[in-house]
């Protein structure tokens, strides 16, 4: 297969994983203004739930993905109702709270599932390769790209074409007016938090087909999410797509062309964007 095409597919599939990861975070940050530093931990919890369902109990992989999302969403509801609601509008405190949750969620996952590495798992249907232009390309990656596209389209449709999406955008842009117009912002926030966390858990199970699961992943995942947000901007599906795409491209081509400086290119890109347009390439001016 043409090497360039291979690299492009790599960039897209990696970007798709990043998009799944970051879209939930962007939604939460955009609507609630909260940097949920435990987003990575939710991704990992989702992955573990998926593992328990699909591998330990042999139930359908897709049900596992659903379960992973639901459990992550449930945890977010507990966080929101039990803690965030009492710190209404105190964004810094809420962010710090999520930092404390990272310690707790991370250690709880280790406690329940043990600290060992779980090998990648996916639906049996996806464990082979597809022939693309005569060369084998992993099926699970193609599935990730497709799922990423479906979710991106779904979120974009939700954002731009539905009343709920309009309410969310209104909440992001101008809270006072939104409330004045009768929009139930606390409900919108809760729903956004749930949906964003569901996406994290779901992404965890899907992405586990490539990465597997282990506790430290929560930290490395969180760093990637922050990179996507910084580069692409917060609060819009397009921004997350751009961020994920650029990061995917940097990863694929950076590693191919400048293998020694892979991580650097990511951080440099972040800093350049932060200097030129602090809210990200397609970010809303929050």
């Amino acid at each position, binding site marked *: 297969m043409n090497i360039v095409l291979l690299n492009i597919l790599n960039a897209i599939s990696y970007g798709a994983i990043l998009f799944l990861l970051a879209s939930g975070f962007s939604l939460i940050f955009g609507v609630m*203004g909260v*940097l949920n530093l435990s987003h990575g931990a939710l991704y990992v919890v989702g992955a573990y739930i998926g593992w328990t369902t699909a591998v330990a109990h042999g139930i359908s992989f897709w049900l596992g993905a659903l379960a992973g999302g639901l459990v992550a969403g449930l945890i977010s509801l507990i966080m929101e109702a039990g*803690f965030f609601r*009492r*710190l209404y509008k105190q*964004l*810094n*405190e809420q*962010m*710090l*709270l999520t*930092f*404390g*949750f*990272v*310690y*707790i969620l*991370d*250690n*709880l996952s*280790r*406690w329940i599932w043990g600290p060992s590495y779980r090998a990648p798992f996916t639906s049996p249907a996806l464990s082979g390769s597809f022939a693309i232009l005569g060369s084998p390309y992993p099926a699970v990656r193609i599935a990730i790209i497709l799922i990423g596209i479906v979710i991106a389209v779904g979120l974009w449709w939700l954002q731009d074409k539905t009343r709920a999406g309009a309410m969310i955008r209104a909440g992001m842009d101008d809270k006072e007016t939104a409330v004045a117009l009768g929009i139930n912002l606390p409900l919108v926030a809760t729903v956004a938090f749930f949906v964003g966390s569901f996406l994290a858990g779901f992404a965890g199970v899907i992405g586990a087909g490539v990465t597997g699961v282990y506790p430290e992943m929560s*930290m490395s995942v969180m*760093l990637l999410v*922050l*990179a996507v*947000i*910084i580069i692409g901007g917060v609060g819009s599906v397009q921004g997350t797509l751009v961020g994920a795409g650029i990061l995917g491209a940097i990863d694929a081509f950076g590693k191919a062309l400048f293998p*020694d400086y892979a*991580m*650097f290119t990511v*951080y*440099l890109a*972040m*800093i350049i964007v*932060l*200097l030129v347009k*602090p*809210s990200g390439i397609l970010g809303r001016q*929050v």
Partner: protein
Amino acid sequence: MGREPASSEKQGLLKVIRLAPQFLILLLLIFLIPLEPTYIQSLATKILIFAIFAMSLDLIIGYAGIMSLGHAAFFGAAGYGAGILAVRFSIDNIWLGLASGILLATFIAAVFGIIALQAKGIYSILITFALGQLLYSLATKWRSVTNGDYGLWGVPLPALGLSGFEWNGTYYYYFVFLAFLVCYLCLYRLVKSPFGKSLQGIREGESRMRALGYNTWLFKYVAFVIAGMFAGVAGVLFAYHSGIITPGDLAVMNSGFVMLMVIAGGIGTIYGAAIGAALIITIQYYAGILTADRWPLILGGVFVLTIMYARAGVGVYFYSLWKRALVRWKF
């Protein structure tokens, strides 16, 4: 209050009593800790080092109002500066080590500050995080200088310059304690000065201060660099204390860890950060002994509880209790 004018002796006595907590703590630190076994002294040394680190962060968060998730970059950089001088260049002089570490930290803070202050509000978290991680990846990759992720080990306690003087744990504890006192007094004077008051004004309402003609950017920038400098002091002392400096000491987890201390102790009061450091490190240490694998739950739990129920900080909370007691007992 309607009290009869007090004699100067009585006034002196009153002053001492009002300062009783500070007195007690000083007594504890000066006389009692050195009598403890050396591993306790070592823990106390670490607490004082992180107290300096936390107080410096409080200058940024609590006074200049900039949320930073990259403060450990200055701490770690200074540690590496001192460590490299000792290990790679074999320079056996603690003052040169301190100077090189602090200078390096200040320089990096000067550079980072220009970039970090571009961001508004919560974005400063993202920028400072990115900058800190950049330095972390540099420390990990530049193996020939920093020895990579293993860390730069073999950092000795360099010579004080006094002939015949040999370091031991207790002497180093006193050295760090003196450094802590100096840093505390400097930062205390700084925040009580007009500069410090202006900072607070900026934190509470930047546009108002600008309307009054203040160059708010400059104030925040100077505060950022000074904070970086003090973080550097802590970093050098830390490298000498542990005998090793690792990339993890620069990373976001360490930045978050020291932020925990500032929040737990009380933002916006220099002493609060010091108390927060003592609290968090003590909890981490003893929780770790209690349960070798579940202690992060305890630490995370304490932190969550502090944010929910003692938002002003545990240090501030206890100090306010003391102040109320003073009033009640008519001191």
